[in-house]
């Protein structure tokens, strides 16, 4: 079994912790302290993390952000999502080949009750932006994030951002995440709880749980910035290890420095699909092709041109029919589709790959906002079921705000703006309609409008109104 770690990278330097040993099914593996346990296991060349409970089909990493459960293993006897668990020396890791047991969780929990002015759920761009606005004000803020590192999906964005100067244009996402993370850690009124998942809203408060503790949080204002999860796609053997979310592969590769595969097929030519393809080239992998069911490339031309000039074909009007392999993907089957999305007979071909990355869109994480009781609507152009909100990002539940991909699938830049808007809205509600806050919020609304005026944002522009509550008309 080879080492899948990336040794040298044109842009990134991987800062790894001290070298440690973990045990997978009794076998010692080299790991680095603090890195994602799943990344450490995958880096050691292990393809099968567990078996499915009923059909005993092999499972491995898919999302790498704690959403899918595909990488769940037993760590020192306790079922654990390995992707969002930091590796520690001597950890004993076993496959889970049946249903995981629940009982052992409770024994580890200590509880703490927290009363706060503001609770922010999610430490991605939207949540961090709200936190930035509220930093060093006289409001107490608790930010809960379920990942090892703060920054949401920014921490894996190695490409240079578009936009204008005030919106981080010309910078790389992971640098913005590092900057914010350090800035927020210095805010005197802020408590950041990392590695904890907000599991629900109860009569007693909002419950957040980490491996070590449970927190019962009673906030006056809430910003929900829970982001989105990656869509899967239906095709034969789509659960085979080696089939991964493009975002999952980005985390593995750009955050933890582990190459997802050597020969890759990317499904979907939106910006995520195009960008991951370029990043795979940077990590030294070969991208056999990008397949796109539509007759046109979905993402920005410049992202497509970047991979075309290194010879990566973008096969429009093509789809994936299935993958074959025993313990992991060994080949993919692709074919042409006609304008009605029907497979054109006789165009099937086999592509030798070890990895298939799915970049077929995202779905907003609305579970928590719905538990708060916020009204939602199904708006396909915005990513599916989304919360309704005022232009100031307040939901139908008074004092509960949303921002970022959860409100509509867009991008980091708009998530930041929405997060700032939500932050100012809370300041305005808590401290009155001060001129300074109102002006800043109006400017942000104008910025958002301008940003969405690009032709590529047409769908968002068209459907945004459908998600709006009348201004000030909360408590629907």
């Amino acid at each position: 079994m080879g080492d899948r770690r990336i040794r040298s990278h044109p842009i990134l330097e991987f800062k790894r912790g001290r070298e440690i040993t973990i045990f997978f099914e009794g076998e010692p593996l080299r790991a680095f302290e603090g890195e994602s346990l799943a990344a450490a296991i995958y880096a050691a060349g292990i393809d099968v993390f567990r078996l499915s409970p009923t059909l005993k089909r092999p499972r491995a990493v898919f999302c790498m952000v704690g959403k899918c459960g595909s990488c769940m293993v037993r760590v020192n006897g306790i079922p654990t999502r390995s992707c969002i668990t930091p590796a520690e020396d001597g950890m004993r890791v076993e496959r889970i080949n049946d249903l995981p047991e629940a009982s052992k969780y409770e024994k580890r929990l200590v509880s703490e009750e927290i009363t706060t002015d503001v609770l922010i759920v999610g430490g991605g761009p939207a949540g961090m932006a709200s936190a930035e606005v509220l930093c060093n004000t006289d409001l107490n803020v608790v930010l809960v994030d379920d990942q090892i590192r703060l920054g949401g999906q920014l921490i894996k964005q190695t490409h240079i951002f578009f936009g204008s100067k005030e919106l981080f244009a010309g910078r790389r996402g992971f640098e913005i995440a590092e900057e914010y993370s350090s800035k927020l850690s210095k805010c005197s009124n802020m408590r950041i709880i990392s590695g904890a998942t907000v599991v629900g809203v109860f009569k007693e408060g909002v419950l957040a749980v980490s491996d070590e503790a449970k927190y019962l949080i009673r906030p006056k204002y809430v910003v929900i910035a829970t982001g989105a999860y990656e869509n899967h796609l239906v095709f034969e053997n789509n659960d085979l290890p080696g089939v991964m979310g493009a975002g999952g592969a980005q985390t593995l590769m750009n955050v933890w420095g582990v190459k997802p595969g050597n020969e890759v097929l990317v499904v979907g030519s939106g910006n995520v699909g195009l960008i991951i393809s370029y990043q795979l080239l940077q990590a030294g992998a070969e991208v056999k092709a990008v397949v796109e069911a539509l007759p046109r490339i979905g993402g920005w031309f410049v992202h497509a041109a970047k991979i075309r000039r290194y010879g990566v074909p973008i096969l429009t009007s093509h789809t994936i029919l299935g993958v074959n392999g025993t313990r992991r993907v060994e080949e993919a089957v692709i074919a042409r589709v006609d304008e009605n999305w029907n497979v054109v007979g006789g165009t099937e071909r086999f592509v030798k790959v070890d990895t298939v990355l799915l970049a077929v869109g995202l779905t907003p994480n609305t579970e928590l906002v719905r538990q708060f009781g916020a009204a939602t609507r199904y708006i396909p152009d915005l990513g599916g079921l989304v919360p309704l909100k005022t232009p100031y990002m307040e939901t139908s539940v008074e004092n509960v705000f949303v921002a970022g991909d959860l409100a509509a699938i867009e991008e980091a830049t708009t998530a930041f703006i929405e997060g700032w808007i939500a932050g100012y809205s809370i300041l305005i509600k808590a401290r009155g309609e001060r001129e300074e806050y109102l002006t800043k919020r109006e400017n942000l609304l104008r910025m958002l409008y301008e940003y969405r005026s690009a032709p590529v944002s047409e769908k968002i522009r068209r459907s945004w109104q459908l998600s709006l509550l009348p201004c000030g008309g909360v408590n629907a």
Partner: protein
Amino acid sequence: MTHFKESGVVDLDTLARMGYVPSEERLRRGPVAIYECVEEIPCNVCVFSCPFNAVTKNKITDLPKIDFSKCTGCGVCVGRCPGLAIFVVDVSREGDVGYVTLPHELLPAPSKGSEVLLLDREGREVGRGTVTKVYRDKITRSWVVTLSVPKDLVMVVRAIRVIK
């Protein structure tokens, strides 16, 4: 010609129509930037990066407008463009040798004197060239590489592979 949103490849006619191809006379005068930013993207990095104010946009989503009389071909925008969509070409010297400056973010690292394979917009090998100048942009850390290439390939070469 196939539309660039179908192929991922832009042709010279499209670039010319968008005002991105300088006149013969301007090309003869010295290095000049070639923008291949053909889609309305909400981005103005080139505008605020240009030390000579040669690039303008009215709205952030407009296509950039390049004033070729102000552009000196300095190449600052090459290392800054998030789309890696800006190149500098120089055909001003006598003889058959021209120069292309392009952004590069793949290993092996290029260095002065490196021999490279020249790739066109579709990744096809079109020849060999030599790195005459290279630096890392201080903000993006992308390499900005200047190559000597056959003069007739300056509008063709858009990527390189460094030969080890």
